[in-house]
């Protein structure tokens, strides 16, 4: 079976400085890959390039058959297939402040996938329950703890059912107990046939929960 994500000699330059020089990695379905390295090593940049939020200068990215090439980010109208395949959980969660936890999850279901309000609510409620924040469905983002906000953000990214989930520093704000719970959750997501690429500088988390780790140097 071919890899879900292939990054081949990815190079990103900022102000004539290489942020990423020749990053190559693969993520298969059902696999968790950790992208390790100190701050400034380019972990977030790599995730943003895969999510087509960031242009790159050289190399190639292929997500489940959808290829990205060097040069400016294509317009959104040409990225629809990629958007269906890739979900991204931001380090700062970036929940929509004006919507409840439930509506953060249903928004894309209703307006991108065209589901009815009832169907979207059902999907979102199920996702939030699976992530153990079902009781917080009616809460506003500002009322959520860091861990709760993270799980709502995961639910939001998972709602359109992407094959590949990208996560940026998911353990940054979590205590050890929560970290263990998150690891277990991510494992469960993988067992459904997804691939996960997790940017982290948390070596212990990487060792404990990922199948492979790729090390970046600053």
């Amino acid at each position, binding site marked *: 079976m071919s890899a879900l994500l292939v990054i081949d000699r990815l190079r990103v330059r900022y102000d004539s400085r290489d942020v990423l020089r020749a990053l190559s990695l693969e993520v298969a379905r059902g696999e968790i890959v950790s992208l390790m390295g100190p701050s400034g090593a380019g972990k977030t940049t790599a995730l943003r390039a895969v999510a087509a939020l960031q242009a790159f200068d050289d190399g190639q990215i292929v997500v489940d058959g959808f290829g990205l090439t060097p040069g400016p980010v294509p317009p959104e109208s040409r990225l629809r297939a990629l958007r269906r395949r890739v979900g991204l959980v931001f380090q700062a969660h*970036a929940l929509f402040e004006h919507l409840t936890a439930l509506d953060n999850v249903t928004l894309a279901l209703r*307006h991108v996938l065209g589901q009815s309000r009832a169907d979207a609510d059902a999907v979102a409620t199920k996702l939030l329950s699976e992530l153990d924040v079902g009781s917080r469905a009616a809460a506003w983002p500002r009322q959520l703890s860091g861990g709760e906000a993270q799980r709502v953000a995961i639910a939001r990214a998972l709602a359109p059912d992407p094959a590949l989930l990208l996560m940026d520093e998911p353990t940054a704000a979590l205590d050890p107990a929560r970290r263990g719970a998150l690891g277990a959750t991510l494992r469960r997501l993988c067992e459904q046939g997804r691939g996960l690429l997790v940017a982290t500088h948390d070596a212990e988390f990487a060792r404990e929960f990922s199948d492979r780790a790729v090390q970046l140097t600053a």
Partner: protein
Amino acid sequence: MLRDSARHRQTCGVNVHVLSLAVALSMQHGQPRVLVWGGDAEGGAPFVEADPADPSRVRGFDVEVADRIARGLGGGRTARFVQVQWSNIDQSVERGDFTLGLSGVEDTQARRGRHAVTLPYFEFREVLAVRPDDQNRIHDLADLRGRRVATLGATIAYDLLIAARDSTGMIPVSFDDDVHPYADLVAGRVDAVLLDHIIAQRALRRMGGRGFVILSQPVAVGHYVGVLARADSVLRDSIDAVLREAMRDGSLEQIYRRWSVWDDSQSVLFERILRTGAGAAGAAGTPARGSTPPAQVVAYLPSLARAAGVTLLVSMLSMTLAVFVGLALASGRLYGSTPLRILTTAYIELIRGTPLLLQLFVIYYGLSGVVRLPALLAAVLALGLNYGAYEAEIYRGALEAVSRTQLEAARTLGFSEAQTLRLVRGPQALRYALAPMTNDFVALLKDSSLVSVITVVELTKQTAIYATNVGSWVVPGALCAIVYLAMSLPLARLARRLERRWGGRAA
């Protein structure tokens, strides 16, 4: 995002200081050697105008009458002119800004009741001006049922029109100056103008004798007088003696002939005054209305309510327009192509960098050659287009306040740019914008008073008219303030509440 609330206000404080200085100088060494008199050079020739040869000096028949009075009072007195807005002459003379008000001041019973008034020195006729097409149809006020008739506010002519409104159903339109009524007559915005024959003839000369005709049959006859503070009746008697002497020795006639305002009715007036002695020519106009203040206030309330309604209507329509203009400008600035961005930025800077008063004049009078807008529409357009520029900056700031990562999150979820604006960015920006928008509406409510310069009688203008009628600003000013506060205070409270609830960017 708060703005300087004084930006539209006209500066009028400077004049006051100049005036008090002039009074102080004139009073030096006990005996005044200078007769300080007030008039409005904006009224122009032949009354008082800036001398084209030396704009720091004034000339006109009222200037020469003042000179003649000063000379006649003896003691080597000279006349010194101070500028005052015509409608404020009575208030200023009572304040002591000058000793004698003289600038086409009309003889009315109300004025005689409140101030020391000289004998009449000039007789004028209230004449109707109409477009040439109408001169066979319109002969007097009764022929103007349902038509718009313009005049200068707070004059005998205005009182005549108000009385005719009730009896014939014509529509009085009040102006702040005596030039634009004729311009609007020619432009077709009004159907007739009722004003002093001197003013009508001057306007006709300015237009090269075309555009309108002056009806020969006068609607009424009135007189110009000098006005002094109530306490100055002794000086007034001396001035009356000088005027009589000037009528007798022909110096007044010479002045009038020099300014081409002499006619037979002046010699009849002079004869009558010299024969009867006192200023018995009789005051024109309606008597001061209502005898007791409470009755006056009650009688005034309906027009106050109507004016407050106009203020509210103009403000709400303008704000609605401003919101749409602001949204269009802000989207142009944030999402538009480079030329559109430059264009919207230029508009915003142009509007914010020039006075609203100027914009009002340009839209109402400047554009009248291209499109003749009704006054209310012009007012709403000017205010809406002006405030739209300020709203645009509020919306731009509010849209930019929505965090970039939320917009990126929306992209990764597959939203188009339009969906992101509609579902994520817009709703949050609205929360940031609501409080400053409410503040702007309060400011707009007050700025709407400026539209009185284009004949819309709103709250402030109605108050000024009422204050002129009753001869005091105390009660009208207080009533006006109460109505403004009743409209703005609830809004200010709402703004504060919204600010508290949504003020923090991190919400």
